[in-house]
């Protein structure tokens, strides 16, 4: 009996045992390299195509600002949901996050954009704000007057017969300026994003 007590004491007064007991820790928790964290700049040149902003599903998560070194996307923590779509959408590989760029390269995928414009004809009052605000319209007909009426049919949007008409949806760049300028929320732009396999020669 006394001998077993001695053995107990010997066991419990070992230094390793005491250390383990008082400072037990699991292995340090590390973020794995494939974790898709907030996108970071790779240092490549941004060409201000704004595909990142178009792809981003989270309000206020990304904007592209002008710096002395040129355009730069900026990610806002607290808004960004780390989905990685901006990384995939950028044609120049300006952003990077986790293994998004690598897997895009191995799977040979690209994001393809298209847009759908819906005008609710019961809400539209034909004010033409959308057609005047649209930057694509501005390039086609810089003279377009207040009211959105114009003679040319090359325009993306115009007002005729008192309602907004979508003439060339394929010219839309998805900026949603029209949506923000419509007083009645009559015009809606839907962005359709599709991951497509890029053809071989595209590489």
């Amino acid at each position, binding site marked *: 009996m006394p001998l077993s007590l001695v053995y107990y004491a010997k066991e419990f007064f070992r230094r390793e045992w005491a250390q383990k007991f008082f400072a*037990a*820790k*699991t292995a340090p*928790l590390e*973020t794995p390299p494939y*974790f898709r964290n*907030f996108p970071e700049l790779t240092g490549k040149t941004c060409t201000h195509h704004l595909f990142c902003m178009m792809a981003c*599903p*989270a*309000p*206020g998560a990304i904007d592209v600002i002008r710096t002395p070194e040129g355009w730069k996307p900026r990610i806002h*923590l*607290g*808004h*960004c*949901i*780390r989905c990685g779509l901006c990384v995939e959408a950028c044609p120049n590989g300006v952003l990077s996050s986790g293994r998004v760029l690598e897997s895009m390269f191995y799977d040979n995928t690209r994001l393809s954009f298209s847009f759908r414009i819906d005008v609710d004809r019961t809400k539209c009052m034909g004010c033409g704000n959308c057609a005047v605000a649209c930057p694509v319209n501005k390039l086609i007909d810089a003279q377009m007057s207040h009211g959105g009426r114009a003679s040319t049919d090359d325009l993306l949007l115009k007002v005729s017969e008192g309602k907004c008409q979508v003439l060339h949806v394929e010219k839309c760049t998805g900026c949603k300026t029209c949506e923000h300028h419509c007083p009645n*929320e009559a015009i809606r732009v839907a962005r359709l994003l599709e991951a497509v396999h890029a053809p071989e020669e595209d590489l």
Partner: protein
Amino acid sequence: MTLLQSLKNLVRSRSIHVAYVDVGSCNGCDIEVLACLAPRYDIEQYGIFVHNNPREADVLLVIGAYTPGWEEKLEGLWEKIPDPKAAIAIGNCPISGCLFARPHTLVDPPVAKHIPIAAQVPGCPPRPTEILSAILSVAPTVFRDYEVRK
């Protein structure tokens, strides 16, 4: 600083009682907070205990974008927590409303409008390690020398 005070600081930094409240989330952040309780992270080794009782809590984790049902209730809950206390916003929702911050939304972010927020953990949802390191970095600074500062 007195010996007693440094003893208190030491003990407080090793005994952090946590309560969490979901003020209208998608459940994503709740799952990540639950994941912190898993043996993988073993939060007791850092002295963190989750009672989910505001009367016992030191740290309140706020999850979600503040739906109308929480008006007045969240403030009441915050009042129930004894001093010293700290609230941490978990996820994008309490910071900005995340994807719910759309026109005509019913949610009323940020939560910092309603109760004082000591730290924010961005992400949708944040990793459990990010939540843990936020708690571990906030708690000692909030609780250190509490009696002296009071």
